[in-house]
């Protein structure tokens, strides 16, 4: 297939766009795609975070200039590195950039509080176990509601095994 634009080179980029409910597909060679500002590297397309990241630190007094110099004490990632790549360096970055991340998470997810599974680490504390039991009971209820009885039986056994002996 040749390029729709120049008609000479082989088309390597196929751009599907939806404008006003109309789908159109353009077949472009690498040169014409680059001229249109399309990057042919797969990761570069559609980077979902960039819009959100562009806003972090703008009009947000708490997270402006000083944030750029923030550095994670564990992996050495700076906040500026994060803004450039959209990737955090290690679990400790979440504490190091907590203030900035909290406002970013609110923008992305609409909140910051995890309400899913509660993790039970290999050596759990009493609170870990308690929180964990709550999730399991919720799952059990759901399994019964959806008539997934095999799963419900498994969950019931798991809850029994974890509950403190009275």
């Amino acid at each position: 297939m040749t390029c729709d634009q120049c008609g000479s080179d082989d088309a390597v980029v196929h751009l599907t766009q939806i404008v006003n409910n109309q789908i159109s597909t353009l077949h472009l060679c690498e040169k014409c795609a680059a001229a249109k500002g399309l990057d042919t590297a797969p990761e570069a397309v559609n980077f979902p975070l960039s819009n959100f990241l562009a806003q972090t630190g703008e009009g947000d007094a708490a997270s402006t200039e000083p944030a750029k110099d923030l550095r994670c004490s564990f992996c050495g990632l700076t906040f500026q590195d994060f803004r450039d790549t959209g990737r955090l360096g290690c679990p400790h970055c979440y504490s190091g950039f907590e203030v900035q991340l909290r406002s970013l998470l609110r923008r992305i997810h609409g909140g910051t509080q995890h309400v899913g599974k509660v993790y039970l680490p290999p050596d759990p504390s009493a609170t870990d176990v308690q929180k964990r039991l709550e999730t399991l009971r919720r799952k059990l209820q759901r399994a019964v509601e959806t008539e997934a009885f095999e799963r419900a039986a498994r969950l019931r056994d798991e809850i029994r095994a974890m509950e403190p002996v009275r």
Partner: protein
Amino acid sequence: MTSLDELSPVPDHGLSWLEASGDHADIVLSTRVRLARNLQGHAFGSRARVDDSEAVLTRFRDCLGTSRPLCGGALLPMSELSSRSRRILLERRLISRELVGDPESTPAKGGAVLLSDHDPLSIMVNEEDHFRIQGLLSGLRLQDAWNDVDRMDEELGQELPYAYHHEFGYLTSCPTNVGTGLRASVLVHLPGLVLTKEIGRVLQGLGQVGLTFRGLYGEGSEVVGNFFQISNQTTLGKSEEDLVDHLDKMVRQVIQYENQARLVLLRDARSVTEDKIWRAYGLLRYARALSFEELMNLLSGVRLGVSLKLLPGLRVYTLNKIMIFTQPAHLEQAAGRDLPPAESDVHRAAYVRRVLAREGDGSTGTAVEGGDRSRS
């Protein structure tokens, strides 16, 4: 060692998701649920040094020996696979582009994939996150996929200490995955909505209910053959069950819209629709060269025909199989050598002709039973 030998430990060749079972298998190709997990005390993928990645893989390998449900399966380190084998795994949608790395060079140390032998489950190690646990099933089976993945996650989390935060949940390299770390996605074929030009509205609607769509190969990939991958957009602030349920409801709604669109096509444009379908079949049955994109577009027409029972002799499983085995690395595997694109197109057309001839001529309505799994 050939790619075939390298991949022989892979259970079922990782292709059970093609079998066209599960709800709405003519419209929904597959269901995938994945969880992103990371270990405490190690830098994430993008920041990890080689020894970090190797340490993560070693810890993972060690726990395979101790944990019962994890031990059955094949662990394939990327560095021990040829470029073609890695691309075959990608084409079977068992690993990501990121894990394949640059196809021409040796991949970084530490990247690996575990393929479970008793569930349609796999774990990618040292991708963007230390672990990506994923379940891939045929048809629309979100709850089943989530249950499988959840169980595997429980096992792994008991063996290895995950990075977890009391407020933010499971910590991930990218903040768009934090919280549950869960991405559920469904690959749907929506030619009716595309032909009736309703697709834009439907996709826009998905955005308004917290869902997003991508192309066949996930993030950043284009839409080919009218296949759309619909998934949850946010991962934090809702429970895993709610995320999965919500996607399930919305996808069922989209399927309903698609079926309505198909009825409209049959009612208002039956002869044009039939012509499109039979032309697509005719080209696939007799063409001497096909690019992958052209093939996908023609397959889309044929799939619509099979779904509407206008092409009686074909099975959805056959169409699924064609999609996978006509990708470049699979064609090279069958040919036993590298194929430049022009040659690849010729091999692709030959493969499709062979399969369609064996499956029976669509016009006679006689299907030949028995798959072609042996070719893998």
